[in-house]
């Protein structure tokens, strides 16, 4: 009797989860169904909770001001109006100029692209040097960079402002790029270093014997391997720099402000009637590029991971 029970238990343990699932359901159908239902209910509630704000934003941006004033927050628009989108993009007033978000959108692009490229490039070469060309003190340097990741934005505002002033880059786009590059290097170095640590040292040895030097090994062997980590780094840096408000509002002025600062100004500087539909459209426009980066690069990220050709 007892040995029979033990056998059954051993058999259950050996069988795959797929096969044991129907067994368990047959044993206690009520609780299983109940739990499954509860699980979906909770998940559904979470989905609602997270998508509701987006839904409200989109719906509101498509309504006319008249309708917003009368109607409920959640109701669908009676008539779809795209004028608020056009206004937000091209003619909303920020301060005295009424050109919408468009110029600031390009400001952000001009800021984000170089900042992401430079910080990713420096992170890649740092990570390569710190993992494959160790030197006395390299671990200390890496530790300090890691520490840099934990320094909050607010802490560096004043010293950074003084530094930018001293080197004559205050209030310029290049100054803002420099701030983001310096702040981002800690993260990008961390990403690349941890990725390269897993690449076998023998690859470097083989390449050294083949006659390649520091840079040739980096560009011809390590960079082609780095697509997955590069995508991760680019997503991270792009999102952070695009969404940054604090550095943007502190270190830029007048026409060179990034889109986040412009969005803030649109929302806060309306006179007379508050145009909620324009505000919502502007907020969505400001968030679109990061969404796009996730959708486009996310695919490459998965592809890069599954290619997994590092293993010898």
């Amino acid at each position: 009797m007892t040995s029979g029970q033990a056998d059954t238990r051993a058999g259950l343990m050996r069988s795959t989860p797929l096969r044991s699932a129907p067994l368990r359901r047959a044993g206690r159908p009520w609780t299983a169904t109940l739990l499954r239902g509860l699980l979906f209910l909770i998940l559904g509630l979470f989905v609602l909770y997270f998508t509701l704000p987006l839904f409200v934003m989109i719906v509101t941006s498509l309504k006319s001001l008249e309708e917003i004033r009368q109607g409920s927050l959640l109701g669908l628009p009676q008539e779809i109006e795209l004028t608020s989108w056009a206004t937000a993009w091209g003619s909303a007033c920020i301060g005295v100029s009424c050109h919408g978000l468009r110029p600031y959108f390009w400001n952000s692009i001009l800021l984000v692209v170089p900042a992401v490229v430079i910080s990713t490039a420096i992170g890649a070469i740092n990570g390569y040097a710190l993992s494959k060309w160790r030197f006395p003190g390299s671990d200390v340097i890496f530790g300090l960079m890691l520490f840099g990741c934990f320094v909050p934005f607010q802490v560096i505002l004043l010293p950074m402002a003084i530094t930018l002033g001293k080197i004559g880059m205050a209030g310029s786009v290049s100054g803002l790029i420099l701030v983001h590059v310096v702040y981002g290097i800690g993260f990008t170095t961390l990403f690349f270093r941890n990725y390269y640590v897993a690449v076998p040292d023998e690859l470097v040895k083989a390449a050294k014997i083949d006659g390649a030097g520091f840079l040739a090994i980096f560009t011809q062997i390590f960079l082609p391997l780095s697509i997955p980590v590069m995508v991760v780094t680019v997503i991270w840096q792009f999102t952070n720099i695009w969404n940054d408000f604090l550095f943007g509002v502190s270190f830029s002025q007048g026409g060179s402000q990034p889109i986040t600062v412009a969005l803030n100004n649109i929302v806060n500087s309306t006179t007379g009637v508050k145009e909620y539909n324009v505000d919502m459209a502007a907020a969505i426009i400001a968030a679109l590029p990061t969404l796009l980066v996730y959708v486009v690069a996310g695919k490459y990220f998965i592809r890069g991971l599954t290619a997994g050709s590092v293993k010898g």
Partner: protein
Amino acid sequence: MPVLQSRNLYKDFGAVEVLKDINLSIEAGEFLVLVGPSGCGKSTLLNIVAGLETASAGDILIDGQIVNDVAPKDRDIAMVFQSYALYPTMTVEKNITFGMRVRNVPRREREEALQRVAKLLHIEHLLRRKPSQLSGGQRQRVAMGRALVRRPKLFLFDEPLSNLDAKLRAQMRGEIKQLHKRLGATIVYVTHDQTEAMSLATRIAVMSDGKIVQLGAPQDLYDRPNSIFVADFIGSPAMNFISGRIQARDAKPVFVADHDGAPLALPVDHYDFGGDFGGGVEGDLRDGQELILGIRPEYVTSGAANHHGAVSVDFELVPSLMETNGFDQHIVFEFCGAELVGRFSSKESVEVGRPHRVHLDLSEISLFHAESKVRL
């Protein structure tokens, strides 16, 4: 002039001494195998020869030139790694020609070298593939191709076969040996597998604890190991060791061990004591000194077969374990308080627990000092 020399080479990592006074000299065309248990320093030595690590003291000479400060790429060497270290994003063709492309060798010359090596290693059909699309054996070939393509003065192999399965390993071993013969290449080869060392080497250096404990031709190491360490390391199944003492009987030396509580004498007067034992027990050897007698399993055979001419003794022994491998069987006996392994023909019928007549051929024994573990 030797292709490679190492003079009084030392290496330490902080307080740990990895290599102690390594002196080697390798002539053109030699196939030297560095063999030893893991952690004996053999891979470190190879890396120092390649220039991937620097020695703490001593010199490395290639073709008579001190190369201590010469970069790996300028030493005219090629290396094959245990993990193959193929560049994962490059095709086989690009992998093999990478060194030449980095050195700006003209395209035509590169193409010729590639074709020569591809033909030599039978990998012509794989040239467009990526390393991830190759099997273990194919990767191994490509790794060798990358080394062969440049015709270096010296080839370094770092455990190149240990990632392959047994059958493929034996096949690649044969191919490496053939390549060595055909190309007349000079090779230094690191392995922990003594079978590989025995079958490939023209000379073997057995390393232990950062030192070369014996250097010589494979057969010499097998027949005349200079210490118990080498005797135990080379050969499979390993040599049998019997503890006992030397005694003089009628001015002739005999080896006395205790078997089943009674002393048992084995004649050793044919052994070359090298002046240690002249007529009586004298010289370095005291009467009754503790010794260890080593005898290889192939000299422990069935007493039922016919033997003649050799110095030998026969015993009734009880088999405690047997292992058949088709060609022969390894039988374990209890003898003088230790295990004695014999190699019997597989035709011989032996039963565990039933006494069997065992023949010990003493013509090829080794004697070691019990204390220093060194050969007499």
